[in-house]
């Protein structure tokens, strides 16, 4: 261990991680894409925050901003804070932020294959972090790499240390990524679609492993996923994103019971069922919003079944519904009471 690793007690009033009113835009040839428009969420030790939302709504970009790995330019952060134990990562000197990022916040990337280097063996890639960051000897680092690969259930791990990423199946590569992200015993784990390539039995094992780490290391986890089954299984709280905003935030049970935003409701209704073949699946009609030319008022109004004139003219503010629950809908209360929908 290096000396930077100080035990970080939760300072009164500070969350482990807090994103505050974050904005991110991309400057492209065709104009400016406003991808993140005032996102706020927080994470405490030992808990799981699930981030749900439409494909392209900005879940990964928010995570990349936290990790400090956005290419700037084309990306720009015109506004916002990312607080780790109360300290703004965006204002920190680069070397200090790199240490926090490397040791205390770690991320499982959505694209396992492109996050792995094709020209180095898998064992080398996992052990590299251990050698450079923790100063382990080559032999120790390799031993630990095998342990980590075993932990994520890669069969015959030792025999496969010298194999290259292309020789692994999609799900194995994803598990290699998970092993790498766990190497440093992080305080915050951002898991971006960590189990899409895994069958449900391995997925259950990995989720159990992550739950153990949350308990044993008091690790906080941001779980970005489209799998509403996994969310129901493991999340404490849920933040739902649409067009670069958090449109609903709630405790997991409350949200599944009664969504307070029409987008969330549409999402829950689109889930295919295991116990019923069903006929045509329900969908949310219309196209996702064009981030270069966002609609007026509520960004969801062109697709919302309950749209009223006020939704076209005024952008709804995030409404506090009590118990940490918020919804950015003019008719949040009606949604919640079941009067609408």
């Amino acid at each position, binding site marked *: 261990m290096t000396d930077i690793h100080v035990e970080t007690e939760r300072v009164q009033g500070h969350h482990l991680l807090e994103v505050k009113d974050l904005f991110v835009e991309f400057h*492209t*040839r*065709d104009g400016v894409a406003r991808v993140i428009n005032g996102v706020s969420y927080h994470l405490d030790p030992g808990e799981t925050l699930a981030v*749900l*939302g*439409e*494909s*392209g709504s900005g879940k*990964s970009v928010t995570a990349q901003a936290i990790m400090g790995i956005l290419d700037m330019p084309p990306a720009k952060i015109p506004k916002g804070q990312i607080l780790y134990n109360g300290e703004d990562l965006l204002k920190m000197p680069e070397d200090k932020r790199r240490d926090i990022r490397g040791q205390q916040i770690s991320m499982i990337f*959505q*694209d396992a*294959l*492109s996050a792995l280097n094709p020209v180095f063996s898998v064992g080398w890639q996992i052990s590299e972090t251990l050698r450079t960051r923790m100063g382990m000897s080559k032999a120790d680092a390799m031993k630990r790499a095998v342990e980590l690969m075993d932990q994520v*259930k890669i*069969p*015959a791990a030792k*025999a496969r240390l010298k194999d290259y990423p292309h*020789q692994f*199946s*999609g*799900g*194995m590569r994803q*598990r290699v990524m998970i092993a790498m992200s766990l190497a440093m015993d992080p305080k915050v784990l951002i898991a971006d*679609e960590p189990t*899409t*390539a895994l*069958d*449900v*039995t*391995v*997925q*259950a094992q990995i989720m159990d492993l992550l739950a153990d780490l949350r308990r044993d290391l008091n690790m906080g986890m941001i779980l970005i996923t*489209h*799998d*509403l*089954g*996994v*969310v*129901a*299984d493991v*999340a404490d709280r849920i933040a739902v994103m649409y067009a670069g905003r958090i449109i609903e935030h709630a405790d*997991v*049970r409350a949200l*599944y019971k009664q969504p307070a935003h029409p987008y969330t409701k549409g*999402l829950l209704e*689109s*889930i*295919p*069922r*295991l116990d019923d*073949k*069903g006929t*045509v*699946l*329900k*969908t*949310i009609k219309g*196209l*996702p919003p*064009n981030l270069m030319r966002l609609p007026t008022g509520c960004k969801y109004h062109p697709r919302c079944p309950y749209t009223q004139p006020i939704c076209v003219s005024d952008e709804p503010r995030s409404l506090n519904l009590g118990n940490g629950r918020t919804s950015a809908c003019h008719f949040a209360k009606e949604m919640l009471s079941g009067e609408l929908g």
Partner: protein
Amino acid sequence: MANLGESILQVDNLVKHFPITRGILFKKKVGAVKAVDGVSFELHKGETLGIVGESGCGKSTLAKLLMRLEHPTAGRATLHGKDIFKMSGSELRRLRRNVQMVMQDPYTSLNPRMTVGDIIGEPFEIHPEVAPRGDRERKVQELLELVGLSPEHINRYPHQFSGGQRQRIGIARALALKPEVIVCDEPVSALDVSIQAQVVNLLESLQNELQLSYIFIAHDLSVVRHISDRVGVMYLGKIVEIGTEDEIYNRPTHPYTQALLSAVPVPDPMAREHREIIRLEGDVPSPADPPSGCRFRTRCWKAQEKCALEEPLLIRRAVEPHPSACHFAELRHVVA
């Protein structure tokens, strides 16, 4: 589907072993990864065959074999009676047009230097007979819209899209040539459930319209149930159970199928404590060194001596008319 259409694709005992080599200068073969190890099935016109199974059991390798991206170690696959591994010249060109694939990895399967318009339009360059030059841009825009992407994004590059958006670019590209068979390897895993539902509905309506056949590989068993007419369950390079959607989900007889179905997370947080998951003990065996007899026996709660000695064949068992590769095949209801 009540009655199956004509059988268009037959896969017969297909095998793919990857050699394991050691040594840097003189590569010595020290073993083989038995990725696909004797897989047989048929695909009918207008049918969707779902393939599910353990991560690493050979699903993508099977898909690549059918696309002729890998060459088989043994076995045959015939499309309309012709061996696809022996095709060349115009026959091969026709195969490349009629069988398309949506790749598992939406990140690396798209060329980063090409615009989305070029990626989706590329099949028209190779097969100009499908769309005359002047018509292509319009066709590409139609395809973009079909998969729920904005036609205005035609000049963007892959890295400017999110994971799910890239997956839809792959789907649009596979649809461009109106093929007969599409092999979909995890086509919806990166999509939110609403867009996933749109894509699944789209695949189904195209199927009805054009009598397409799909091989649909996915880990999401609810989606597979929804879209499939028949489902094959794979474990370590082999199909262990195959049947209609109803047979596999409502009357599974193989212990692996039962374990798999029981582990599907339920989208209801209240169900957390009450679910009965069959937890598989032990580690997934290495495909380089699969267990003797039944490959699932090292993790099976029913395993007996016979299972180590004798390989169970994929045949009809007394309990159920659909084929199951278990000596002790037995009905068990796991889907609530």
